[in-house]
């Protein structure tokens, strides 16, 4: 792979998360869940959250779905980041924290892929806990947040 563009976007850690996604699966009777789609390219992701005894800390979080390497790898990374944090902390998580983890520059189109998991997780937490919706979705409470 001699092409620098190729090497940076599809760097090893992204391909690793894509091929061996962390937290991939379904939580039956999840405390919070949501389904998100990227209408531009058809990426789909469903996120399931189980809270700990305090009802706030994310004890377990899993995702299922299909999509491009960027959307699936970013969601996989997010699973590792979200576990052990409270709903409030994740709801206010800065997207740059996830972008730093991804660690490659993204075009605007691919940014939507990368943010799909985080947006969906925030919607799940909003539905279960009333935490703030992610930027751009606030004010759209009436939307079908299935």
């Amino acid at each position, binding site marked *: 792979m001699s092409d620098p563009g190729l090497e940076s976007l*599809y760097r090893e850690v992204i391909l690793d998360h894509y091929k061996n996604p962390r937290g991939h699966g379904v939580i039956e009777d999840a405390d919070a869940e949501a389904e998100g789609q990227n209408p531009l390219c058809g990426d789909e992701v469903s996120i399931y959250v189980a809270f700990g005894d305090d009802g706030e800390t994310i004890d377990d979080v899993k995702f299922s779905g299909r999509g*491009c390497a960027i959307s*699936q790898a970013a969601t996989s990374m997010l699973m590792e980041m979200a576990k052990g944090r409270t709903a409030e902390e994740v709801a206010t998580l800065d997207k740059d924290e996830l972008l730093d983890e991804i660690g490659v520059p993204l075009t605007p189109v691919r940014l939507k892929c990368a943010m799909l998991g985080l947006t969906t997780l925030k919607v799940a937490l909003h539905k279960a806990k009333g935490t703030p919706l992610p930027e751009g979705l606030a004010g759209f409470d009436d939307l079908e947040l299935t």
Partner: protein
Amino acid sequence: MSTLASRCEPRRYDESVAVKSPAKLDARTLRRDFPIFEQEIHGKPLAFLDSAASSQKPRQMLDAMNRFYETSYANVHRGVYELAERATEGLEHARERTRAFLNASTTREVIFVRNATEALNLVAYAWGLWNLEPGDLVVVTELEHHSNFVPWQFIAGKRGAELRMLPLDDQGELDLSGLDALAREGNVKVVATNLVSNSLGTINPVDRLVSWAHEQGAIFVCDAAQAAPHMKLDVQALGVDFLAISGHKMCGPSGVGALWGRAELLQRMEPFLTGGHMINSVRADKTTWGELPHKFEAGTAPMAEAVGLGAAIDYLEEAGLDAIEAHEHELAAYALGRLAEVPGITLYGPPADKRAGIVSFNLEGIHPHDVAQILDLQGVAIRAGHHCCQPLMQKLGVAATNRASFYLYTIPEEIDQLVDGLFAVRKVFA
């Protein structure tokens, strides 16, 4: 020169292939008319394989628009001064070129709109909203672009009419076996399909569907956005009631398209958009509508764009629509053969002789977005996504596909570049 209507009957189509020797198209020479190819992308020659989304533009068309702006520009149909007359002449000449291109009987039936989507919305609103009754059926297909699906779904819903979809068979062709059952089910008022699928390239049996629609007393609305760039159209031979085209897909500029409709239908319809230019007289208590086609052209027209569309039609006719179509069939056959060499590939859609220059495919385990992004770095532009055909993607059981599409300037080397790129994609994900 056979028309599309005759080509849609499979048996005759095969026979015509056997006897016809279409004028050869020299893609390498034509390509030099397109300034976009004078550059490299990521240090590689540009292999532009996304013409089904929008085509590239020949210098002749760009020059015509420039000339119009530089020498003949003013608002049309109003002024009595020289420039206004030149501008009006330019617009109306473009209408005449569009009429001839579609073989319509009169320019009164040719309405300039922004694009095929607007043309189809015009019919859905100005005909559908006034003529659909609760319980009526509107029939579309699983192959429709959203532009010929969503307006009907929306207007049918508003009127309490019901939407039905003709299914696809495993070959990616329309399955017409359910037509009789549909006819028994209710009052079919509208049949709306495309001539050529933008997603699979399938050439649809429009002639058979037109007869069926008319037997039901329904109107037939044809989305020809994907057909017009690639094959000779004849609205009278096709027998359709409305037909929509988009300039940008056929070497013309963005921002202009055309709706053709039967004068007797257009005359009875209420307007779609109202305002300037489309009126006959305006009084405080009542406004009367202008004559065709102006009744459907509210506001200042896309004048320079229409001039560009006229020039694009000149360009296509000089190259020869039959030659373009034959060139694309050859490219599709070549591409299907070459792509089959790539391990893990799934090809969608009908065999080469039943499709226009469009090939949709997936690589096993690799999302189309990733495929398209890695190909971009090889200078190859393809489309990845649902191609505005989500019902079709659901049918195929995929979220998205890769789509390579060809046009008169496409050369086989671009397909080779695509195939080489796909091997590179597989290496990244190996």
